[in-house]
């Protein structure tokens, strides 16, 4: 065997995920290697279960472990930080034949993902609301509000994804008569906790516009166009209270 270190590492990874088991017989023939491989697989699978606790409550541990085993083999981790593992899991669930009767599972997983992103996002100072409120009204229109990386939101068309997620996250019963309507979610991390809120389509449009670095005037325009009856005052109070805006 005469491999460079990088060559050995590539062959090791390849053997680990069973892509090319013959590449390193001296390694793969050792019984210890099977233990190593199993531990890696189990670590990745456990990470998925830890990262998608709401999905786990919906389908049960055994089902999720079996689905995770498939996902891990198909999409092994590419980042050593397992907190980031499973970005493709919602899409996987959408396409998963055994989840066909659970069409909301992918979206519930998407909200778990938003939670993880808010959880792991970089710290940023919050907007100084007092200073912001002191801006002259005529200048306000052109202000561009920045959003903190700890704020994540998403709109789900034709699915009560937020209600399904929230009930299972909070470990309460899903209402028996569930309205099958579109819902949005906002997840935002504050100093000591992560909070979630329902979000209307106009509020989602407003946050999307702010994220696209549009001035306040345009963001408000987008929001009211998406939702003509939207109460901008109420929206802004809610968003400020949810701590979504970053310091200017």
């Amino acid at each position: 065997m005469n491999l460079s270190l990088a060559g050995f590492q590539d062959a090791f990874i390849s053997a680990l995920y069973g892509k090319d088991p013959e590449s390193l017989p001296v390694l793969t023939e050792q019984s210890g290697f099977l233990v190593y491989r199993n531990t890696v697989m189990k670590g990745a699978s456990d990470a998925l279960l830890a990262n998608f606790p709401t999905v786990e409550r919906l389908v049960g541990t055994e089902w999720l472990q079996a689905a995770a085993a498939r996902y891990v083999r198909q999409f092994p981790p590419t980042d050593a930080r397992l907190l980031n593992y499973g970005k493709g899991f919602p899409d996987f669930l959408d396409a998963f034949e055994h989840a066909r009767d659970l069409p909301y599972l992918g979206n519930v997983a998407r909200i778990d993902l938003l939670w993880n992103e808010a959880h792991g996002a970089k710290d940023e100072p919050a907007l100084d609301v007092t200073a912001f409120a002191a801006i002259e009204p005529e200048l306000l229109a052109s202000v561009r509000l920045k959003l903190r990386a700890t704020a994540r939101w998403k709109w789900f068309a034709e699915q009560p994804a937020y209600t399904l997620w929230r009930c299972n996250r909070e470990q309460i019963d899903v209402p028996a008569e569930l309205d099958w309507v579109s819902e949005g979610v906002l997840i935002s991390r504050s100093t000591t906790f992560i909070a979630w809120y329902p979000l209307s389509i106009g509020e989602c449009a407003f946050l999307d516009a702010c994220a696209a670095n549009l001035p306040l005037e345009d963001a408000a325009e987008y929001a009211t166009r998406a939702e003509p009856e939207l109460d901008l005052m109420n929206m802004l109070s809610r968003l400020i209270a949810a701590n979504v805006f970053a310091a200017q």
Partner: protein
Amino acid sequence: MKTLNIAAIAIALSSVAAGSVMAAEKPAAMEKCYGVSMAGKNDCKAGAGTTCAGTSKTDYQANSWKNVPAGTCTSIKTPNGHGTLEAM
């Protein structure tokens, strides 16, 4: 329309600034969020990737699929009916 929007925002801002909405969040400019649990609100798992599985026997191949969802999904009614209890 636009003028109206901005007027509403200006009023919202002044009322927010005058009120106590942001009182909860002051200095702590740099914040840490360790210990926020992933699952429920109070339980605490060690975190992703901390399992040590000293065995080669557990089957992570999952070639056969005998699993049926056994969580709360069975009680959720979609426009197309309940989640299935039968193996497919």
